[in-house]
């Protein structure tokens, strides 16, 4: 056990204890477990949001994109900003509905708005299908961090097993509140790590940020303008991608539900105003990727760029600190993903679909049990089929974005009904699968998900216009 590993595991352990303490004393009902009793103020909502948004993808993936692809990575700075702008208008409306009708989840919203249990169950299942690969990505990121920090002395599988045993315990006992509080630890560490490395490495190797970029342009003249080092990610791709992912961001069942955790619509608006500032540290992450391209060229997998550069540049204890930040950055989003996937299954697949008379206690019991099942599934996939779900992950964002017409049009347009939403959703999802797996992404320079979303909107609107609502939004038996 070296110093880096000791630091990583101590931080994981402390975070778990904090998570357990944060949620431990209150009596746990469904409202407390999923949406924190609808009591979160600006600060906790901000932390919760930040907790979900900064994942290992931000850490390792963004620097990897900067390293491998160059300018197209800039989209990561943009899409969150657009998403918060959209959230300013739609989230408060969703919050009011949630408060008035006690909604906890995204499918709850669909069931309430469209009066169709079938649509709710369908939305829940689609949501879980896209959450699991995202969870697996977090587990994999964590495994890579621990393995790299131990200089390969701790196996990937052992690393995953230990850390996620702890994550399960804290999801199990504390619900969403524990995750929000552990976000505090995670964010402080993450900002410190990214700040020190992001400003540090360009100075250490090139004497400044400007010099680093000059050196990069001298070696790779096209790396910093679209399409960068890629063949097909030109300006049109970036534009369609930021519009798609900006629209899709709040359609993740986990992020959608933060609307329900807030204590007021006002909280949500204020949060939307400050959130874009949280995108700015990503600039530093990108600079690490660019510096790595010059200092350690030729990596096969760009996701190693951040860790390898830190390992090469800094003392082992600092590698431990960065690794710990990365580990908690995997743990918090993972716990939130698990929590929501299990709630979706217990509440919207089991209760809504199979047994509408199930009591709240039995739903909570089932969703706690599902935490273990889903963690197990994520772990099994991460260990035994590390690449089996990569394809699903590719289409994750494209997939959840297809909820957008149903959510947004439903808020502002009376005429839209369950049949229209269902047709649009199926069209969108089918197009995503066909275009992405048929290797037509980008499609005519546009992000394939964007094409699918456009078709989805068209079908939803057309069907709403042409086909009158079957049951006039009355709840179906």
């Amino acid at each position, binding site marked *: 056990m070296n110093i880096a590993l000791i630091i990583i595991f101590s931080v994981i352990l402390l975070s778990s204890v904090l998570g357990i303490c944060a949620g431990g004393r209150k009596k746990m009902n469904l409202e407390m477990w999923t949406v924190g009793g609808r009591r979160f103020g600006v600060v906790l909502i901000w932390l919760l949001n930040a907790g979900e948004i900064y994942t290992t993808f931000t850490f390792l993936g963004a620097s990897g994109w900067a390293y491998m692809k160059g300018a197209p990575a800039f989209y990561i*700075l943009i899409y969150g900003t657009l998403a918060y702008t959209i959230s*300013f*208008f739609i989230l408060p409306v969703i919050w009011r509905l949630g408060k008035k009708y006690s909604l906890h989840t995204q499918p709850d919203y669909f069931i309430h708005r469209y009066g169709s249990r079938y649509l709710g169950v369908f939305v829940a299942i689609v949501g879980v299908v896209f959450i699991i690969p995202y969870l697996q990505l977090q587990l994999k990121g964590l495994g890579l961090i621990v393995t790299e920090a131990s200089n390969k002395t701790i196996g990937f599988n052992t690393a995953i097993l230990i850390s996620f045993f702890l994550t399960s315990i804290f999801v199990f006992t504390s619900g969403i509140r524990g995750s929000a509080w552990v976000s505090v630890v995670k964010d402080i560490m993450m900002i410190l790590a990214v700040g020190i490395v992001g400003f540090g490495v360009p100075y250490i190797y090139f004497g*400044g*940020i*400007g010099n680093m970029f000059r050196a990069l342009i001298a070696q790779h003249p096209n790396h910093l303008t*679209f399409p960068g080092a890629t063949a097909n990610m030109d300006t049109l791709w970036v534009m369609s991608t930021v519009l798609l992912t900006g629209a899709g961001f709040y359609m993740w069942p986990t992020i959608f539900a933060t609307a329900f955790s807030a204590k007021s619509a006002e909280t949500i608006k204020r949060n*939307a*105003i400050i959130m*874009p500032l949280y995108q700015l540290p990503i600039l530093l992450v990108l600079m690490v990727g660019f510096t790595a391209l010059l200092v350690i060229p030729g990596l096969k997998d760009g996701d190693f760029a951040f860790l390898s550069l830190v390992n090469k540049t800094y003392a082992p204890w600092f590698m431990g600190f960065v690794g710990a930040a990365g580990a908690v950055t995997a743990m918090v989003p993972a716990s939130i993903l698990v929590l929501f996937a299990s709630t979706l299954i217990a509440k919207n697949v089991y209760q809504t679909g199979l047994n509408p008379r199930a009591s709240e206690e039995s739903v909570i019991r089932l969703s706690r049990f599902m935490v273990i099942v889903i963690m197990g599934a994520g772990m099994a996939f991460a260990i035994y089929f590390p690449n089996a779900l990569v394809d699903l992950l590719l289409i994750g964002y494209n997939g959840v974005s297809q909820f957008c017409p149903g959510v947004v049009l439903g808020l502002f347009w009376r005429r839209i009904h369950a049949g229209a939403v269902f047709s649009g959703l199926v069209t969108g999802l089918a197009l995503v699968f066909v275009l992405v797996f048929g290797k037509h992404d980008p499609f005519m320079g546009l992000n394939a998900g964007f094409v699918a979303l456009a078709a989805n909107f068209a079908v939803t609107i057309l069907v709403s216009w042409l086909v009158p609502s079957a049951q006039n939004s009355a709840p179906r038996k």
Partner: protein
Amino acid sequence: MQKGTKYALLCAAVPFVTLAFALPFVNRVEPFILGLPFVLFWIILWVAMTPLALFAAYRCEKRFNLPEREDEE
């Protein structure tokens, strides 16, 4: 649509125009500003300006819209 909402939507158009639709016109590295290539500087600038745009939107809603019934406990 209430007047405040209209103004608010106008404010919110700012990040969409600058960060999506303007990209073809700023896709170059020169001039460097604050050590950043131009396109990156442009993006950072408007990401940092978005909170101001949203704050303006917030003020517009407060000022011109009818007060909302706030459901806080």
